[in-house]
């Protein structure tokens, strides 16, 4: 079988790709191959599902009709085993293969599980990345369960929030001396830690597991934690295997150019499996965030359909809340720090070479997008009234002419 466009991976990058292709090519055949048994759903919502804030139906990223409407043949629960870039085919787990003109590899990430001694003696252990992970965890927990989560990053903490109130106790540990080490500094993390602890979540920081003995974790410090259910949320790694094995260039993730083309002809890649060029740190990084996946996927789709699109302004960013406490972060935390503390809100703005390059906001994140936009557009701060909006972001900071363009025309 041959399909003009083949997409491997059913995450959000695949939807971006489909929508990108259809902007240029209204009818070329698209085949979506996904190892999961579900149509594209919102992965970051799995904790909200456990919390009861969404449902399986509402978690669908696009309506079921989306695929038929866009002429997409969907192959669920189908694993792609190998890409043959010479013959331009993808070998599938059922032994068949599918030919492509243009291929997107959007295989996301896989959980990184350190080789903890004795991990095989733990009976009830889970990752927290996919819908199936969440559903399996849900089946395993009871109101008495003592849950031990290894990893106080976004995944581990969202998991904790998701099962809060449905289990006996939750303990989270992390080798880092603070929570959310990838997006917060210790100051701002402190506020989040207090909020988590005030909701009864036990935090063990600066310490991690040395070994497991069935339902006991012995930590490096010598302390021990007894648990009934273990969640491993240490981190994720880009799932690069297919492109790597086909001879494509890999760094930390799959290496792509600004059009999302890999080093293999007609093979594109998008989403968590790739590296992006982060304009705020001027370095290639894996930006495993949903907006990035969509925008890369869309860019790839347009180029696969022989339109032209370039995605060269990636900015790391996160907006997330825990028990009603909001966190908005973007960019990189270097340069001159402007710190504003108001009741219930900590704001840190980082200015480097006359431009805003990053921020951390804990609390009121109102209009944070105005800051994010200054970062993305590399707006010289001497062109706006930056003083005015350090405390409260507003279009007031721009000149009347700039504002006229923003509010008086089609943008």
């Amino acid at each position: 079988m041959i399909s003009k466009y083949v997409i491997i991976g059913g995450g959000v990058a695949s939807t971006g790709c489909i929508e990108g292709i259809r902007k240029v090519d209204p009818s070329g055949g698209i085949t979506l191959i996904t190892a999961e048994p579900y149509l594209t759903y919102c992965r970051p919502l799995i904790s909200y599902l456990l919390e009861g804030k969404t449902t399986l139906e509402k978690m669908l990223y696009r309506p079921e009709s989306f695929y038929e409407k866009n002429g997409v043949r969907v192959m669920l629960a189908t694993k792609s085993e190998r890409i043959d870039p010479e013959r331009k085919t993808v070998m599938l787990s059922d032994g068949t293969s599918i030919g492509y003109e243009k291929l997107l590899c959007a295989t996301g990430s896989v959980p990184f599980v350190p080789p903890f001694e004795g991990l095989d003696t733990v009976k009830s252990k889970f990752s927290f990345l996919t819908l199936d992970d969440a559903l399996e965890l849900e089946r395993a927990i009871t109101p008495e369960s003592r849950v031990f989560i290894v990893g106080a990053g976004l995944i581990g903490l969202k998991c904790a929030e998701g099962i809060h109130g449905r289990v006996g106790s939750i303990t989270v540990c992390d080798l880092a001396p603070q929570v959310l080490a990838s997006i917060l500094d210790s100051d701002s993390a402190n506020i989040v830690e207090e909020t988590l602890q005030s909701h009864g979540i036990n935090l063990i920081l600066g310490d991690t597991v040395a070994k497991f003995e069935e339902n006991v974790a012995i930590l490096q410090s010598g302390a021990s934690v007894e648990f009934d259910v273990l969640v491993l949320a240490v981190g994720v790694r880009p799932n690069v295997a297919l492109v790597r094995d086909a001879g494509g260039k890999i760094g930390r993730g799959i290496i792509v150019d600004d059009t999302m083309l890999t080093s293999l002809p007609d093979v594109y890649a998008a989403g968590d499996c790739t590296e992006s060029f982060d304009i705020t740190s001027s370095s290639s990084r894996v930006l495993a965030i949903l907006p990035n996946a969509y925008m890369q996927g869309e860019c790839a789709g347009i180029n696969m359909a022989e339109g032209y699109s370039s995605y060269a302004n990636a900015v790391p960013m996160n907006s997330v809340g825990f028990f009603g406490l909001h966190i908005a972060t973007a960019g990189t935390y270097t340069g001159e720090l402007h710190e504003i503390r108001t009741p219930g809100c900590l704001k840190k703005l980082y200015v480097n070479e006359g431009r805003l390059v990053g921020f951390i906001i804990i609390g009121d994140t109102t209009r944070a997008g105005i800051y994010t936009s200054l970062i993305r557009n590399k707006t010289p701060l001497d062109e706006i009234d930056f003083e005015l909006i350090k405390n409260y972001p507003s279009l007031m900071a721009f000149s009347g002419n700039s504002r006229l363009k923003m509010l008086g025309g089609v943008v």
Partner: protein
Amino acid sequence: MKRVYVNEKWCLGCRLCEYNCAFANSGEKDMVKALKGKKIYPRIRVDEHDGITFAVSCRHCEDPICVKSCIAGALSKEGDGMVKLDRTKCVGCLTCVLVCPYGAVVQDERGAALKCELCLTNTAGYPACVKGCPNAAIVYEERD
């Protein structure tokens, strides 16, 4: 498509647009009942500084970054061009607030996202902010 445009030269800063917006989206028939003594959550907001005032609401961007960034698939832009929010899908992560360059996505009483839908999804049927603006500082029209 027709959009809401503001002209700050004519804006009095009276904030009637905010009240009319909150009323139009309240589902109530009586303005006093809808607004009196209540915290309002208008989808258009007036900014005021140093004699300058203007209102901001969703620009219904041609290429909306909020739609692409929504982690819940709750924001969409269909053929009519309007950027729409399915509030039943929104989980309140506020990624849209983090990315909107205009600061035009606000929060509702639950802390979830809220945005202008041009009064086409409520019973007003025509932007209430425009209809009630005493100085024609907000208009609803087709522009290039």
